[in-house]
């Protein structure tokens, strides 16, 4: 059974179509990324999957059930955008209450609440009220609540937006470590982050699903992305074009070059590039097999 299944899914707010005829089938497994510009319909799609709102037309099912149905309670969790906890009650009280609603007795619910707070490094703030938490801390608490009871599917809407780099990294590591038991669907604007985490990327634009890219496929592309430490780009382009089996080279950003080749031999291009750098004494920063996610989506 597929984890998520959307057929002709549309949602309109008055005249505005937030989502239009989206067809998606997703299976359980590695984290899945949802990318798109502001207003592309990412949050609307999340809200539909969680059952917060109902579609204007089309169908959506999770684990074979309609969102919001009793069979899904406790099996799906989300980090919703623009949702906050009750400011009058401390974090632990609220998370413990969520736990009891998920079927734990009071004692185990509290233990579970402390376990997930530990996962996001906030066990010390358990007794604080949400108002006393910084934006980043509140976000981590909201991520923690999504992990209670180890749900099968977790939807994270911009989980690292507003987090400091160290905590953002921690959240990425957390997602990675839990990816074996829980499937994550993550919406984010941070493409580097999604590239590190996800195997599949869905690209939404103007409410429509434009592309579905698999990261694994990118390994077979005949591309190499080269980042240099600083060198004369015209001479680099000239020199690379003289190498065997190179189809094209383009400077895509400052010091970043996209090389297309048709070499069948593994490492041949890489070796000749490194030899070239050694000869000319050029310093390179990174040689990436394939294209970056940004390149794949926007080129």
């Amino acid at each position, binding site marked *: 059974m597929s984890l998520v299944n959307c057929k002709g899914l549309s949602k309109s707010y008055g005249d505005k179509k937030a989502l239009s005829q989206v067809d998606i089938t997703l299976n359980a497994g590695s984290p899945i990324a949802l990318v798109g510009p502001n207003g592309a319909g990412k949050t609307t799609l999340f809200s539909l999957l*969680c*059952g917060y709102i109902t579609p204007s037309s089309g169908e959506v099912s999770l684990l074979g059930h309609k969102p919001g149905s009793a069979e899904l309670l406790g099996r799906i969790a989300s980090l919703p955008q623009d*949702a906050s906890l009750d400011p*009058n*009650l401390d974090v632990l009280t609220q998370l413990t209450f969520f736990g009891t*609603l*998920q079927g734990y007795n009071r004692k*185990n*619910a509290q233990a*579970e609440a402390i376990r997930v707070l530990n996962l996001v490094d906030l066990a010390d703030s358990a007794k604080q009220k949400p108002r006393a938490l910084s934006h980043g801390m509140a976000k981590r608490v909201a991520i923690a609540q999504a992990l209670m009871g180890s749900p099968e599917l977790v939807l994270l809407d911009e989980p690292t937006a507003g987090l400091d780099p160290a905590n953002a990294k921690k959240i990425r590591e957390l997602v990675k470590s839990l990816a074996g038991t829980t499937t994550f669907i993550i919406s984010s604007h941070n493409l580097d982050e999604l590239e590190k985490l996800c195997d599949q990327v869905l690209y939404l634009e103007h409410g429509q699903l434009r592309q579905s890219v698999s990261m694994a496929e990118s390994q077979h592309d005949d591309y190499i992305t080269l980042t240099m430490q600083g060198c004369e780009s015209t001479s680099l382009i000239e020199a690379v074009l003289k190498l065997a089996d190179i189809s094209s080279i383009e400077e895509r950003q400052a010091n970043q070059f996209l090389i297309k080749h048709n070499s069948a031999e593994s490492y041949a291009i890489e070796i000749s590039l490194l030899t070239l750098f050694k000869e000319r004494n050029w310093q390179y920063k990174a040689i990436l097999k394939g294209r970056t996610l940004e390149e794949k989506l926007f080129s």
Partner: protein
Amino acid sequence: MEHTPQKTAPKNSMPRNTLLLAQFEVKKMLFNPRGLVALAAFALVWLLILLYPISSASSFLINPDFRGIIEGIFGPDAVSELFKWPVAELAVYWIAALYIFPLFSIFVSADQFATDKSRGTFRFLTLRVGRDSLFFGRFLGHIALQSILVCLTVIATILLAANRDMSLLLPALISGLIVTLNLIIVLLPYTALMAILSLYASSARQATIYAILVWAAMSISIAIINNYLPIISELKWILPGSQISLMINTQGLQTFMYAPVALVQAGILLFLGKVYINRSAL
């Protein structure tokens, strides 16, 4: 990785979750600053009522002047039963409570859903409990809280009566029980209507304003309809509280005469609320 605690209850048990939500709601109201302010206001109002009209109820009810005032307000014969209450304190309590509790209910239960909905807090809940549980849990919580308040004021009234004359304790307890049950039944449709308005509004204040509008608009339209089409004058029964003025002139078990009105109203409103929460965006 740390050990994950085990779940003990069967998943998705609706009655269990409804009760948990109700319990949490009462706890929330009793332990947060806003709830405490409302309770303090409530306690002060009742302290005044208990100290003055109720504690001197017996002398009031014998006093022909007071009888004249009451009959002047409610009309002659509209209050004849009132003077038959075995315990005078409870008779005065009955009039005060029949009007004050519904009013208080509008304010106290205005925030069943509004704030949590606009803050997005329900998004944390709806993936864990069904919307029916959420609706009925909150409603039950608010009814439980109001019942506690009714009980406290009834107990205070009984104590006042017993303090005047110890032999009144038993009749006061019986009358007290009848009054308590009646008041809770009266509050059901109020709380149910407030649940719906609170789901629609984006703040408690807005829900209260909607409540005033609903009651005013409905009273006016019912009055107009009564005037032109007296044949459908029974329409007045759709408005919560329409039976209250008639209840003043009841006593003892007779007071339950109008209970079906409130129960049917509450049943219809709760059904509408259940449909509404299942269709609305949270």
